[in-house]
């Protein structure tokens, strides 16, 4: 069946109406994707029995909830950045942050797109402000490397992830992409690393699988600190 002559005009009109003003750069899409994975991590903790509270660097309940759009320090007060506090009964409290720098084995600072760490480590870093202290990766429970791509996810990101994971002492480090990532999936499966792909609200089965992977990480945390 030949295409309608008006097809291109219809696509242009629909695309214009669907386009959010914020979506003008690849980085904005990535920032929103990190926030989306933050919500999956928080909900996985809630499913595993955590009491969840939202706080911000300036204290109190965040309104608006401010996400970082560039890697930053956990104690930064440039904006009133928000984070989640996870309280598992009888276990040390945890915090979930987006886009913070953490200190690796080599003392190189790495960005964690989503980072779950001990609250006492986060508080220690904030207490040292205005000194910008980066939390130690040995205090990180879950780190997520988020990748949002419209075209193919380049293989070098998989290699970079292996390097990142090797330099972090975090318990669980995940590579998560919004679309299929053939070569990277092969590489990470071969290296027995944690990864998932095509994670979007439209893929409920895959989201559910990732949710369970995060739950397992919290289950292990609860067992170790019981």
């Amino acid at each position: 069946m030949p295409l309608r002559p008006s097809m291109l005009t219809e696509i242009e009109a629909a695309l214009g109406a669907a386009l959010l003003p914020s979506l003008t750069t690849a980085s904005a899409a990535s920032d929103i994707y990190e926030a989306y994975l933050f919500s999956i991590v928080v909900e996985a903790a809630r499913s595993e029995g955590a009491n969840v509270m939202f706080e911000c660097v300036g204290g109190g309940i965040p309104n608006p909830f401010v996400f970082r759009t560039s890697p930053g320090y956990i104690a930064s007060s440039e904006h009133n950045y928000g984070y989640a506090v996870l309280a598992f009964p009888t276990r040390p409290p945890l915090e979930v942050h987006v886009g913070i720098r953490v200190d690796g084995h080599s003392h190189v600072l790495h960005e964690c797109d989503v980072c779950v760490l001990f609250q006492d480590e986060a508080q220690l870093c904030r207490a040292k402000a205005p000194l910008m202290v980066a939390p130690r990766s040995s205090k990180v429970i879950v780190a997520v490397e988020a990748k949002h791509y419209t075209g193919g996810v380049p293989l070098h990101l998989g290699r970079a992830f292996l390097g990142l994971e090797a330099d972090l002492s975090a318990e669980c480090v995940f590579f998560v992409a919004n679309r299929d990532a053939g070569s990277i999936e092969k590489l990470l499966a071969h290296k027995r690393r944690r990864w998932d792909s095509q994670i979007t609200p439209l893929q409920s089965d895959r989201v559910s699988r990732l949710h369970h992977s995060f739950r397992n990480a919290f289950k292990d945390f609860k067992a170790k600190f019981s």
Partner: protein
Amino acid sequence: MTESEADLWYSRLSDFARSRQLGWVVEEVEAEASMGELRRSKLDVSEAVVDDEPAMIPVGLAKRRKTRATFVVARQFTARERLALLIKALEIAVSQHTTIANHVASYVSEQLGGAAAQFAPELETAEGFRLSPNETRPAVEAGQHLDVLLTELLREVEDAP
């Protein structure tokens, strides 16, 4: 759809995307297209057979053995395949993205009594942005309509003989 029609569609869609500040999507597609389609393929290879006295045999006269080995081979995309990559990328950049943005805006709003989600860089020179469900919900509906159109176009591209 013929190859030349696919070229024309690619050109018009990518120009429109660039005019709506989606040039980064076109760039990602072009990076993917430049890699070509990778697949494993068994190819005939001819290897020199190592002799006890290799230095005694003149170049080109050494015994050779024919075998087959597996290689990773890159094949250039056709114009139709390249157009299909662009259509799928636009679907991800617009329809999928609005769904993710709506999820984030709704999540923050539900968890924090109607609060908006704000995105702010540490650098003062860079700009941030806000998301609220009032803004993202209509975009999701428009994105669903766009999805229908892009799927129709993709079918035309992929079903062409």
